[in-house]
């Protein structure tokens, strides 16, 4: 912009031409700089999402583009007991797994925030579940939960706590708890490490001030640590809820929705219906039905993420 002012426009004393003006116009340039990123977003996010929503209004099947049929798919899935079960499963799975992940993650973060020997190594170890590919860890859990060779059953039998093997994935509630356990195992590192990063931003002198003010360990957590951590908790829990709600790989590998649909989530049901069952329109309707739930979760966090009054203004130091 300063270029335009400095460059003597000798041949055009009447003022910069339209093109000259355009070349230095912030909005015009900004538009072009943004275009590549926007093109990627449209191609890989907006288009698939739009296509999915469009397909949910058609009777498309594999090999058949299908015709527009309005809300028929939605009317059908809403009345479907299997779909209702999948919605319940998804909500239950998301709620229980998120609460447990939060509690364990926060506890772990606070533990790791203390001065421990081999601190860096322990922190790295905590991250392992997060970096192992989900399918690999799912296969590991598949063995851990195996009806015959389960290491858990084996150990408990050795200790004499149980007489027969536990049917982890064959019994409806056992299966639900087992997949939630696997999800928690996988999700805790993300929450723990993020909250740990948040904890490390809390100035140690605040704890010293609280000590002098007479706060116990619990009061320090309740009145100092937790309130300061709430913004980061809102962010990390939003992500956690979104990831958990749309979970697919773990369930696909561990139970594939069984037994009798008791661990079927909306994501796996959508895949099974559309890709394996070939009923693309119906499957698209199931996945589109996840959008309101996800929007709801985002709205809650959006309000949670609003800058609190105390965060406004400049830093403390």
């Amino acid at each position, binding site marked *: 912009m300063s270029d335009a002012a400095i460059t003597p426009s000798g041949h055009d004393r009447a003022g910069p031409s339209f093109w000259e003006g355009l070349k230095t116009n912030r909005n015009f340039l900004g538009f072009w700089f943004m275009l590549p990123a926007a093109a990627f977003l449209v191609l890989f996010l907006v288009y698939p999402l739009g296509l999915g929503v469009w397909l949910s209004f058609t009777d498309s099947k594999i090999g058949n583009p299908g015709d527009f049929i309005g809300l028929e798919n939605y009317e059908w899935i809403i009345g479907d007991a299997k779909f209702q079960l999948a919605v319940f499963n998804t909500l239950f799975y998301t709620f229980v797994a998120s609460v447990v992940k939060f509690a364990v993650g926060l506890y772990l973060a606070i533990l790791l925030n203390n001065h421990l020997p081999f601190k860096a190594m322990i922190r790295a170890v905590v991250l392992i579940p997060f970096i192992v590919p989900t399918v690999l860890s799912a296969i590991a859990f598949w063995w851990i939960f195996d009806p015959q060779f389960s290491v858990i059953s084996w150990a408990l039998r050795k200790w004499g706590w149980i007489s027969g093997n536990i049917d982890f994935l064959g019994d409806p509630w056992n299966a639900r708890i087992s997949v939630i356990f696997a999800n928690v195992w996988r999700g805790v590192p993300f929450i723990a490490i993020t909250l740990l990063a948040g904890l490390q931003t809390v100035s140690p002198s605040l704890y010293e001030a609280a000590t002098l*003010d007479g706060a116990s360990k619990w009061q320090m957590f309740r009145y100092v640590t937790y309130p300061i951590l709430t913004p980061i908790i809102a962010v990390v829990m939003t992500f956690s809820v979104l990831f958990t709600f749309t979970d697919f790989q773990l369930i696909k590998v561990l139970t594939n929705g069984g037994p009798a649909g008791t661990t079927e989530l909306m994501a796996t049901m959508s895949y099974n219906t559309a890709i394996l069952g070939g009923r693309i329109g119906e499957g698209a309707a199931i996945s589109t039905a996840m959008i309101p739930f996800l929007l709801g979760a985002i709205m809650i966090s959006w309000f949670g993420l609003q800058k609190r009054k105390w965060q406004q203004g400049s830093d403390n130091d």
Partner: protein
Amino acid sequence: MASVTIREVRKAFGPVEIIHGVNIDIEDGEFVILVGPSGCGKSTLLRMLAGLENITSGEISIGNRVVNQVPPKERDIAMVFQNYALYPHMSVADNMAFSMKLRGAPQSEITERVDKAARILGLTQLLDRYPRQLSGGQRQRVAMGRAIVRDPQVFLFDEPLSNLDAKLRVQMRTEIKELHQRLKTTTVYVTHDQIEAMTMADKIVVMHDGIVEQIGAPLDLYDNPDNLFVAGFIGSPAMNFIKGRIEGGEFVADGGFRLPVGKAPAGAEGRPVIYGLRPEHIRIEAGGVPTEVVVVEPTGSETQVVLRVGGQEIVAVFKERLTARPGETLAISPSLAVAHLFDADTGRRLVA
């Protein structure tokens, strides 16, 4: 209010001892400043007094009660931190009330005390604000308010003014001193700034490398420094040190010039000594030692001049406005009747 006694206190972090047996007596209602360069152990000593660090050996008592094993909250002290340590998510009022709320004090008492502290510090208009919405000076005042509300036996200040700009620092200095004159609570204040120490303290404790170099009233330290360290640390610009020896009741500098010493210390004849000369104790005198002007720095109220004499630079401060230019010759002589003389080997002051 209470007196504070520090007896043979030592502090070691692992094998490294950083405080080597410190003794300080602080009387009831006294304003004591621990001053020294960074790393001298003054902050650690304050934190031991607060109970934030444990005491390796020795004894600290507050009001005749040994507090070595007493947890911080039961020591009846309040501390103001260098970075204020205000709780960012609490309003000014909540910050000040936090300790009382934890204690379960009745709401009416909390309101009354917070209001009183806010009135003293001029914070009444700011009670609903959050720390981030305050300026540095206001935050500093809130931190003091939090201490006042607790009505402690002893106030502890840990370099409270070092995060403020120069002008505000001077203003807050006065405010803290006023506050002390009003509340008369025993106060222990840590700073590395000797001007803060000189202007505010009833008693200064000069620390260096984990030991106490000298304890005394500000002007006492200025007039009669025990050793080279105190002499160099107290006073700004710092005291000039000139190496030489005593010969025939006069000081002969290694640079060759001579300075009067007033009354020569006994047995100093012929010994290597260091002559301490404060910049403000130099006057221009026709028959004095000729020096070369190096730099002239006028500040308006006075003129600071760097002079070269006998291969050494010394700083002088003159009340009068000087027209001397660099390169010119200025004849000076000490304006003090009795010179500060220090043993060149031990650094101790030689008394006449």
